[in-house]
């Protein structure tokens, strides 16, 4: 006999909620294992450096292009909003602060989350479906120590580095537009940067980047390890890793903004 529609609906919601709780639990277990194997995993320094290169060098061009145009757009938008309201000599400071507090870390997080999160999930997912993870375990090598720790640590270290780079490139992008298109002098723009630069703004962006790196590395590894089936499973794992990374980067950005600017850097 066919089940009454609302009952089926309620059952579906209940099942999805339970799946979600179970998934959160599995991520928590992975995070516990990452902490547990952090020391032994870091002993293989070569593997960490290799992953840092994959995360950083591999994403360099993408971050460069995104940041350059983000800075340029920030300058154009700010100039438009300043018109007849705020003097243009403040343009540099607005570009700078919006970039180092928010745009630099978040866009770097999203760009690297898309590229590196997908790459980690695809690589580990393929290893899972071709029994390479089983082979590691059969050799008494814990996959979290050997595969996950180097990737998560590399992402945590490289995200702030990439963010500093992104900040600098975006400010240069804003400068190029301000000087060539909006008509602000080079001196006015750079003076504005100097006058309104606050170390705590830069620090807040870098703290965010550390968390974003952890999220991207952990999500990529989690969905890679959770891969089932063949090529289709790897594709699904990759998509899920990217979606989860990007959503969590944005949610954690909001949470961190509250913690950082309402409590830690409130004064």
């Amino acid at each position: 006999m066919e089940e009454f529609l609302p009952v089926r609906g309620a059952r579906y919601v209940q099942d999805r909620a339970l799946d979600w709780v179970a998934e959160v639990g599995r991520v928590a277990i992975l995070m516990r294992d990452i902490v547990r194997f952090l020391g032994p995993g870091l002993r293989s320094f070569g593997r960490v450096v290799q992953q840092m290169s994959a995360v950083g060098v591999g994403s360099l061009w993408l971050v460069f292009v995104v940041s350059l145009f983000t800075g340029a757009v920030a300058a154009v938008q700010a100039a438009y909003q300043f018109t007849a309201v705020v003097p243009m000599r403040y343009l540099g400071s607005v570009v700078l602060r919006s970039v180092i507090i928010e745009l630099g870390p978040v866009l770097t997080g999203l760009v690297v989350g898309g590229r590196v999160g997908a790459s980690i999930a695809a690589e580990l997912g393929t290893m899972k479906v071709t029994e390479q993870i089983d082979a590691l375990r059969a050799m008494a090598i814990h996959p979290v120590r050997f595969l996950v720790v180097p990737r998560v640590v590399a992402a945590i270290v490289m995200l702030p580095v990439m963010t500093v780079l992104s900040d600098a490139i975006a400010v240069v992008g804003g400068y190029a537009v301000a000087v060539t298109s909006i008509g602000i002098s080079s001196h006015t723009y750079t003076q504005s940067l100097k006058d309104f630069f606050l170390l705590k703004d830069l620090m807040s962006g870098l703290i965010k980047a550390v968390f974003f790196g952890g999220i991207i590395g952990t999500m990529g590894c989690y969905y890679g390890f959770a891969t089932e089936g063949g090529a289709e499973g790897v594709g699904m794992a990759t998509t899920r890793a990217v979606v989860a990374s990007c959503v969590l980067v944005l949610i954690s950005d909001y949470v961190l903004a509250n913690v950082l600017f309402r409590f830690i850097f409130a004064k």
Partner: protein
Amino acid sequence: MIRIRGLKKRLGPKQVLDGVDLDIEGGETVVVMGRSGSGKSVLLKHVIGLMVPDAGNIEVEGVEIVGMSERELDEVRRRFGMLFQSAALFDSLTVGENVGLGLREHLHLKDAEVRQRVAERLSWVGLASIEAMKPASLSGGMRKRVGLARAVAMDPQYILYDEPTTGLDPITADAIDQLIRSLQKRLGVTSVVVTHDMTSAYKVADRMVMLHDGKIVFSGTPQETRTTTNVVVRQFVEGSSTGPIRAL
């Protein structure tokens, strides 16, 4: 010695193992025969602790491994070498790094010692001087042989072979069979070979067992297997689609 009692495992709707009882004596080579999907690989993965049974016991040298923590299992696993069906070589590492990985991770040998041991194991499987190659550039037979070199790199007491000759041409398959026998003699290991390749099974086995409907339904020497009156084994050995085993 490996002792398995009442091993049960359900995967989805299928009861893959339904009370497997099996003893594997030290130094012998036991071949586990059975149809594709009969649970042979699942059985092998339970022996090395890669899967957790729903019920039953597995003892390795008198020590129960079911319920062990991953750390305790790692101590047991160091006594095993395993050749996977697809060889499961690590794509990102070279052949030399694949074979030497266990040596570097567990024995912490010096580079020169690792290189020497890797070269020796590769020469055992007839693949000298390919340390720098990547797994992607190897043929199926070469991948299996590298997998075998990796499995014996740590001088294991037990070697588990999951379909060692599947997908190989008859000549390469025979070479793998010869390797299994020669490693058996050289190292004196206890081996469990899972296969549905009867030609290979007769060549490498000291004893053959048949896994059917989740249970061990036959155990005997290769000669006893050839002459058995067990209808299930007869149908499997003769490769007939008619008999008690449903073909489809």
